Structures are given as structure tokens and as C-alpha cells.
């Protein structure tokens, strides 16, 4: 309740700007699950123990208790998976699409949504090559894209890069811990 009130007051005072789409979700799916022509939504309704395990691992758990992976298939063979991750900050939400290859390595990351205010900062971080550093990471490696691009970009784009690192870390942890369940 306290965080809700703080959020409401912050939103009123800081005037969070509207959300803009940087990459359509369908386009992100096409980029991150290439070759897939069948898709499935794998929904994991986490138990309290698993939510705690995820929280202990990366300091985050899904607020509704549900993690959804979109699995891409071609001729009934899994070609990869994708998760949409939301990262909140005082300037509003970011949404990332994180794609994984069939072996679980990160295939790519796209920033699908930001706010009007955050958009130029995010674009500056992306132009500096932020998402290149995520490609090929195994799902237990800590993403360190922000550290690589920070010397070339401003303070706020650097902050956006840190948030994107955090989102990738959350998504990768969810994949590592739960994707192969069931």
C-alpha cells in the first residue's frame, strides 16, 4: 500500500509521460524467433517457494505471479523462446523482449516500449551498441552492457542502460530457473 501511494504521488508530481512503442511486439517476435512458424505461450504460475527463489536470485519476482514465455517452433522443433519483461523506474516503464536460442543462450534483446521522456535516452544507449553485448550470453552470465556503453553516452542514457541490464538479468534468471519445468 505504501509503495502504491508513493507511486501515485510520484506519478502526479513527476507527470510520467505517455508510453511509446519503439518496436512492435510482432516485429520483435519475428527478429528474435527467426524461422519459427508455430508459437506457443508457456505460462508458469509460480508457487510461493519459486517466487522466493527468483527473488533471492535477482531481487525481482513477477507481480502477478505469472511468467510467460513464448516458444517458437518449426516442424514441431523448438527454435527458441522469448519473454517480455517490464522494468519500472520513476520516469515510467520500459518493456524489453528477450530472445533465447534453443540452447538457452540469449539470441537478442529489443526495447519494445518506453515513455516519451525516456525514448531519446534509450535510443542513445541503443545507438552506442548496448544490446550487442547481450548476444550469446548464457543465461547464468550477468549482463554488463551498461558498463560497456557508459563511457560513450550521457548520464540518463547510462541509467537507461542499467535498467535494461536489470531487465535482461531478470528475464535470464526466469529462463534459467523455470523454462524447462514441466
Amino acid at each position, binding site marked *: 500500500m505504501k509503495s502504491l501511494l508513493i507511486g501515485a504521488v510520484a506519478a502526479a508530481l513527476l507527470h510520467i509521460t505517455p508510453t511509446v512503442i519503439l518496436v512492435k511486439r510482432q516485429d520483435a517476435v519475428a527478429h528474435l524467433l527467426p524461422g519459427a512458424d508455430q508459437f506457443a505461450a*508457456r505460462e*508458469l504460475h509460480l508457487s510461493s517457494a519459486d517466487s522466493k527463489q527468483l527473488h533471492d536470485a535477482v531481487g525481482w519476482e513477477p507481480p502477478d505471479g505469472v511468467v510467460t514465455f513464448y516458444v517458437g517452433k518449426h516442424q514441431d522443433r523448438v527454435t527458441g523462446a522469448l519473454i517480455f519483461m517490464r522494468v519500472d523506474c520513476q520516469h515510467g516503464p520500459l518493456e524489453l523482449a528477450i530472445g533465447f536460442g534453443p540452447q538457452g543462450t540469449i539470441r537478442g534483446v529489443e526495447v519494445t516500449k518506453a515513455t516519451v521522456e525516456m525514448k531519446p535516452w534509450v535510443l542513445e544507449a541503443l545507438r552506442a551498441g548496448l544490446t550487442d553485448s547481450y548476444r550469446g550470453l548464457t543465461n547464468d552470465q550477468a549482463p554488463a552492457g551498461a558498463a560497456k556503453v557508459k563511457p560513450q553516452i550521457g548520464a540518463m542514457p547510462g541509467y537507461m542502460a542499467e535498467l535494461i541490464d536489470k531487465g535482461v538479468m531478470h528475464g535470464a534468471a526466469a529462463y534459467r530457473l523455470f523454462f524447462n519445468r514441466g
Partner: protein
Amino acid sequence: MLYDLRHSDLRVRWLVTLLLATLGTSYLFGAWMVGLYAGFSTTKVAETYGAAGEAMMMQMPPETTMVTERPVSMAEMGEEQHHVDINLLVQDTHVHMPMYAVIAAVLSVIVLGLAVSRGVGLAIIALLFAAPWLDFAGMWLTKLVAPGFAIVTLAGGWAMALGYTIVAALATYQMWWRKT
């Protein structure tokens, strides 16, 4: 009648006309927004505010993690189901109820200047204030009691539109056409 809009100063009638036009425009966009995020059918409203599906899971985590898999199309992956959880509904109620009260009060002040009987005036004022109560009562009952209460929210929305239409039509007619 506490004052008479029919014979009021031109500036008062101009103010009321512009106020009604502005409120009417905001109501049109409000209806558009409802169409985008909640829908006009009881099913859609129940999906938006109800406690079914994921929201139910949120309230009661399973003892062991449950995994379900279902085929989806590319289009479905691009869609986001707008769902108002209990925290967002608390925030919505807190933010919107005072504004609805102010709008109902302003429209009621216009009603006080209309040439209608005391009973009709009371009924219109009751309708103006009942609408937001029905709207939010419906949302909370849909969330906490049963999806069927979505109809109360729909009734609230239509009551709001009806109340505004009655006031706008009577005021415009009486201010600019019927002078006696």
C-alpha cells in the same frame, strides 16, 4: 428554481454552453477510451475488472508451480489484455471519484437553473450522482464478488451518458430557444 438560466446574463449562458461542450467532448473521448481498454459488453468488463485467471493466481499462489502451454498466433503475442488489478482499482477510484463528484456537482448547479419541477430536478441530480457510484460499485463488485456485477458498471456508464444528455439538451434548449 434558485436561478433561471433562461433569463440569465448572456455571459452565464455562454459559460454554461462552453462548459457543456467541453464536458461533452471529454465524455466522447471517455467512451472511446472505455472501448479501447474495457469494452462495452459485460464479458469484456468482467475480463478487465474480474478476479478470474491470472489475477486469481496472484491472490492464491499454487502450492507447486503450474505450467500450461497453449498455441498462440503472432497476432495474439502482440496483444496485451488490459487487466485492472486491485491496486490499480484503488488508485483509479481514488483519482476518479473526486473528479466525478465535481462534474456531477457542476451539472447539478446547471439543473438548479432549469425550468423543471422540484421532483424532476431531484431525480436528475440523483441520476448525476448515482452514475459514478454505480460505475465504481460495479467495478469493485465484479472484482470481489462475481463477474456478473459487470452489468452495474455498464449501467453506471450509461447513466452518466444519460444524465449529461438530459442536462445538456434541457439547458441548451432553455437558454437559447425557450425564453418563456
